[in-house]
C-alpha cells in the first residue's frame, strides 16, 4: 500500500468511526486552494475532519496535497522547463477537556522530493470568568531535513551532510481571548520562533562580487510576532440583514535579522438570507534584513518595467552573526528579506445549502446542513518581491458538512 493510499484509508477510517457517534458534534471540511503568480501555480486540495466526543475529547485529522508547478530557479528548476512537485502533509490533533482546562497534542508530517519535516506540539487552554476569558499556551517543535535535487530521481543534502542540512524550529505561542460585550470579542497573541540550522534556499543564487553563487544566510534566527484582533457585530437581525460583522486585525513582526513588518487587516461579513458575503483587505510592509544588499536595477516583467532594489553584493558578503565559516559573511537573493509592501484584496461568498434538504434528495438532510464557499483574491507586490514573484491570484472552494 502506497503512502497516499495509507493516508486516504486512515482519513476515511477516522471519518466512518467518528460519524457513528450521533450525540457528539463535528465537521468535515473539503477545500481546494489555488495560487497563481508569474512563475508558480499551486493547486492544494485538502480535507480536515474534526469531531468532539461525549467524553470531551476532540480529535482532528487533516490531509493536504500541495501540487506546485513552477518555472522559478528558486523552486529548483534546472532548465527552462517548468516542473511539478507534490508535497503531502498529514496532521493529527487531539484535545481533552478537563473542567475549564483543555490540553492538547498534535503531530504533523510533511514530505516532498527535497524536504521532509516532522512537527509535534502540546497546548493548554484555560477558560476563566464564565468563559469570558480564555488563556492559551502552546509549544511546537519542527525538525526538517533539507536536500537539493540533483536529478529527476536523486538528491544531495543541501548543505553537504545530513547534520548540516537540518533545521530545528522551536515555536511558542501565548494567546488570550476576552469577551468585551455580547457583540464584541478581543483576542491577542505573542509568538516566538527560534530557528536553528540550515535556512537558505538550496537553489537560489545571488550575485556576489559579480559572480552568481548560492545564497548563504545565518544559521540562527529569532522571530517575534505580536498580534491583536477585534471582532464586532454591531448589526444583528435587522431587516434583511442577518448580521454585519467586522474583524480588525494587526500584526507586528520583528526578528534578529533586521526584518520589521507591519500587517493591518480589515474584514467585513454581511449575512443576507442563506448567503454570507465577506471582504478582506490586507496591507503589508516590511524592511530589509540587515545583511541584505542591493543595486537599483530596471527590471522588465509581465510587460512592465520597474526600477527595483535587486539583490546584489558588489563588495562581497556582509559580516553578520551566525554566518558560516570561514568568511562569516552572508548574502541572499531572497526577496522575502528585501524591503517591499503589498496589498491583498479578497472577496468570498458563502452559501448555506438548506435548499438541498428535500425529502427526495439523497442525503438531503445531511447536505442541507452544509456550507459552500467560493473566494477569489488578488495580491499586489512591489519592488524586488514583484520582480521575483509578480502579483498573484488566489482562489478557494470549500465545502463544510456536519460529522
Amino acid at each position, binding site marked *: 500500500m502506497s503512502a497516499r493510499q495509507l493516508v486516504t484509508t486512515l482519513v476515511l477510517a477516522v471519518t466512518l468511526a467518528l460519524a457513528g457517534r450521533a450525540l457528539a458534534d463535528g465537521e468535515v471540511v473539503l*477545500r481546494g486552494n489555488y495560487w497563481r503568480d508569474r512563475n508558480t501555480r*499551486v493547486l492544494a486540495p*485538502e480535507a*480536515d475532519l474534526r469531531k468532539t466526543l461525549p467524553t470531551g475529547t476532540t480529535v482532528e485529522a487533516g490531509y493536504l496535497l500541495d501540487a506546485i508547478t513552477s518555472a522559478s530557479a528558486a523552486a529548483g528548476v534546472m532548465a527552462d522547463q517548468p516542473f511539478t512537485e507534490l508535497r503531502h*502533509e498529514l496532521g493529527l490533533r487531539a484535545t481533552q477537556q478537563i473542567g475549564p482546562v483543555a490540553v492538547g497534542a498534535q503531530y504533523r508530517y510533511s514530505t516532498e522530493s527535497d524536504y521532509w*519535516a516532522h*512537527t509535534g*506540539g502540546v497546548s493548554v487552554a484555560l477558560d476563566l*470568568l*464564565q468563559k*469570558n*476569558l480564555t*488563556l492559551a499556551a502552546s509549544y*511546537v517543535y*519542527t525538525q*526538517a531535513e*533539507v536536500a537539493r535535487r540533483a536529478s529527476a530521481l536523486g538528491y544531495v543534502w543541501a548543505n553537504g551532510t545530513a547534520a548540516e542540512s537540518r533545521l530545528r*524550529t522551536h*515555536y511558542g*505561542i*501565548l494567546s*488570550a481571548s*476576552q*469577551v*468585551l*460585550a*455580547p*457583540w464584541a470579542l*478581543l483576542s*491577542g*497573541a505573542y509568538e*516566538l*520562533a527560534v530557528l536553528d540550522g540550515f535556512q537558505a534556499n538550496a537553489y537560489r543564487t545571488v550575485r556576489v562580487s559579480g559572480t552568481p553563487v548560492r545564497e548563504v544566510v545565518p544559521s540562527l534566527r*529569532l*522571530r*517575534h*510576532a505580536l*498580534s491583536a*484582533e477585534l*471582532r464586532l457585530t454591531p448589526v*444583528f437581525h435587522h431587516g434583511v440583514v442577518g*448580521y454585519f*460583522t467586522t*474583524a480588525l*486585525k494587526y*500584526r507586528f513582526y*520583528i526578528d*534578529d535579522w533586521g526584518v520589521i513588518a507591519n*500587517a493591518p487587516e480589515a474584514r467585513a461579513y454581511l*449575512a443576507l438570507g442563506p448567503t*454570507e458575503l465577506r471582504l478582506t483587505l490586507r496591507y503589508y510592509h*516590511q524592511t530589509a534584513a540587515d545583511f541584505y544588499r542591493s543595486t537599483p536595477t530596471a527590471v522588465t516583467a509581465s510587460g512592465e518595467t520597474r526600477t527595483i532594489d535587486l539583490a546584489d553584493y558588489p563588495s562581497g558578503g556582509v559580516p553578520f552573526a551566525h554566518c558560516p565559516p570561514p568568511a562569516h559573511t552572508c548574502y541572499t537573493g*531572497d526577496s*522575502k*528579506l528585501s524591503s517591499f509592501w*503589498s496589498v491583498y484584496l479578497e472577496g468570498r461568498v458563502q452559501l448555506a445549502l438548506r435548499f438541498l434538504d428535500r425529502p427526495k434528495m439523497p442525503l438531503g438532510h445531511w447536505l442541507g446542513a452544509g456550507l459552500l464557499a467560493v*473566494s477569489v483574491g488578488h*495580491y499586489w507586490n512591489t519592488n524586488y*518581491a514583484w520582480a521575483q514573484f509578480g502579483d498573484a491570484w488566489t482562489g*478557494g472552494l470549500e465545502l463544510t458538512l456536519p460529522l
Partner: protein
Amino acid sequence: MRSLPRVGLVAASLLALGVVSTSGCARVQPYEREVLSLSAMQADTERVENRFSQHWQESREGGMGGYATAGGGCGCN
C-alpha cells in the same frame, strides 16, 4: 542592534497588560452569547482556510504569525 530578548519580554508584557485591563469588562452570561456564537465571530471556523493563507504569506513575505498556530514544515522559502 536592538535587544531581542527584551523585545520578547515587552511583547509578552503587553499581552498580559491587555488581558488584565480587559478582564474587568462586562461579564457576558451564557444566554447572552447568541451573537458570539456566529461563525463570523469565531476565528476557529476559518482555521482550514487560514492554514493556506498562512502558507502563502510565509512563502512570499519575511514575516510570520498572526494566526496563533505554527506554520512552516515545507521547503517554501
